[in-house]
């Protein structure tokens, strides 16, 4: 498993139609991600990194090319099948946390389990475990608005982890946090990557954040301009 491809992208393109003009957010992206990789996608705004992230996360479908996730061609799946993939294989962490307001950390973490086959009696326990992993044991019943930004992002990570996904996607996970808290969050990511062998893909334009990654991918105007597996930046 260690060296097999988790993700295989073949000539992925994504074109948006806005009125009569076509915007080519991704032109032709081919890239493989192995199990256990920690990949940073970098690039200026408008380079297509968010579009790529949405396609990787099965929130969006490419208009051209093929996307294989664990050898399944998910680019052919319909809305409902994609929802199932998101539920079982993928965990999301967003820049603005995207937690349900007026809801406890526990309830937020339980959310993916409500849409899975996990029996109701187990969901609480699984969510508690997941929260403990990100260091939030004892804060389960705090509502999201009573938590700090860093704590909210940890809840989001706990939520992403609760279903034991193979792929964790993080879109600017430290963008709304100060440097110290951001580093703490990144340490959690690297720990999960090392100890649990979870594949992580993160989008960032912060070089310091990107330094935590083992592989880098630079996008500009919808194309990969540079990729780097050596540990050297830019």
């Amino acid at each position, binding site marked *: 498993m260690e060296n097999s491809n988790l993700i295989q992208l073949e000539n992925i393109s994504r074109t948006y139609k806005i009125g009569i003009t076509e915007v080519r957010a991704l032109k032709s992206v081919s890239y493989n991600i192995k199990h256990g990789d920690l990949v940073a996608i970098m690039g200026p705004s408008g380079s297509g990194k968010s579009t790529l992230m949405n396609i990787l996360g099965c929130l969006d479908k490419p208009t051209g090319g093929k996307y294989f996730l664990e050898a399944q061609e998910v680019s052919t799946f319909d809305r409902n099948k994609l929802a199932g993939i998101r539920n079982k294989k993928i965990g999301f962490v967003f820049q603005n946390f995207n937690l349900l307001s007026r809801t406890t950390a526990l309830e937020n973490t339980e959310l*993916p389990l409500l849409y899975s086959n996990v029996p109701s009696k187990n969901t609480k326990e699984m969510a508690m475990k997941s929260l403990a992993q990100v260091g939030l044991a004892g804060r389960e019943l705090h509502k999201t608005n009573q938590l700090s930004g860093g704590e909210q992002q940890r809840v989001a990570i706990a*939520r992403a982890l609760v279903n034991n996904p193979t792929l964790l996607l993080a879109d600017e996970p430290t963008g709304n946090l100060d440097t110290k808290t951001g580093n703490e969050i990144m340490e959690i990511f690297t720990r999960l990557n090392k100890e649990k062998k979870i594949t992580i893909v993160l989008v960032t334009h912060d070089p310091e954040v990107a330094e935590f990654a083992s592989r880098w991918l630079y996008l500009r105007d919808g194309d990969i301009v540079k990729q780097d597996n050596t540990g050297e930046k830019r």
Partner: protein
Amino acid sequence: MNLLKTIRVALNALARNKMRSFLTALGIIIGVGAVIAMVSIGQGAKNAVQERFQSMGTNLLFVRPGSRSFRGRQSGGGSYNNLTEADAAALLKADAVKTVSPSVNSRAQVVYGNKNWNTSIYGVGHSYPEIRNWDVEQGVFFTEGQVRSGQKVAVLGSEVSKNLFEGADPLGQIIRVKRIPFRVIGVMKERGESGGWFNQDDVILAPYTTVQNRLAGIDYIQSIDVSAVSMKRSDEATRQIEEILRIRHKIAPGAEDDFNVRNMSEIAESAAESTQILTNLLGGIALVSLLVGGIGIMNIMLVSVTERIREIGIRMSVGARERDILLQFLTEAIVLSFLGGLLGIAAGVFASRLLAKFGGWETLIVPGSIILAFIFSGSVGIFFGFYPARKASKLDPIEALHYE
């Protein structure tokens, strides 16, 4: 996601916004409450009417003169003076007829000592108490012999007794009606008011012969009260009465009757019919308010979908399918309208009690109206909840996530 989880999610979502949930349900609460309260008023009125008729005797029939036409000019009903004592006596021959009482009415000022009172004088036969299902409270009713010999005796209604005697014993006292002395031999039981303005106890009963000769100065009778041997045979009694009277009045076959026979169950039915119209009308108005409540639910649900686009996006990003979102919002709408329905039932029952206690309305809550209102409120929830729920489920996850 199974149904139990869906219900849990919906309940949590509603609990997170209690005020909005309550306001949404309020339309249904008021609607259902109104249906139940209004229908209870209608049913109460119907019930009261039926009870009143029952107390008057359901095997009661009335014979009244018909209308007459003279050279093409039609007079109103009762304008004939063609019913006689002999007609009344002849009706006893019909085997479905139990007993009869001729009736002559008059109105007069009645004097006792230094008191006087204006009231109706009913000239009736000795069997009147039996036919009208109305007993003597004190003293006796007049006998067949007293009727035949036209004695000046009177039986008072309780209201008249109250007004003329003010608690003193009226038995054996002499009252004067149009200066003619009548001896009081009895007082009837109290019957209570009927229809609000007409007091059944404000009456004096006297032999019809006496009223004919001494008070009204007529030789015909105005109507005949008949009691059939049973309620079942009252239609048969009607036919027999018609047959007898047609022969006696020498009415050619095919010509119209010069009299009318009405039986009590007919009258009771038509009265019940008119109260049913009242019930339907009130219920209809209340149903409209329930419908408005449903539109209120749809309105709030639509607003709520817009307000919760981000939430929907989050749910979709963690794996909620279209069906899950659809079911969640639909369940929210149904839960709201069902809870609204339950509270509405309580409100309706409460309102109808209040109306009965302080408004003086007679109300009757029928299980049918509760079931109807409940089912209707549930369907309102499904019907008006579906569109917003569908709208929510069709959202694009990416757009929903980035919605501000």
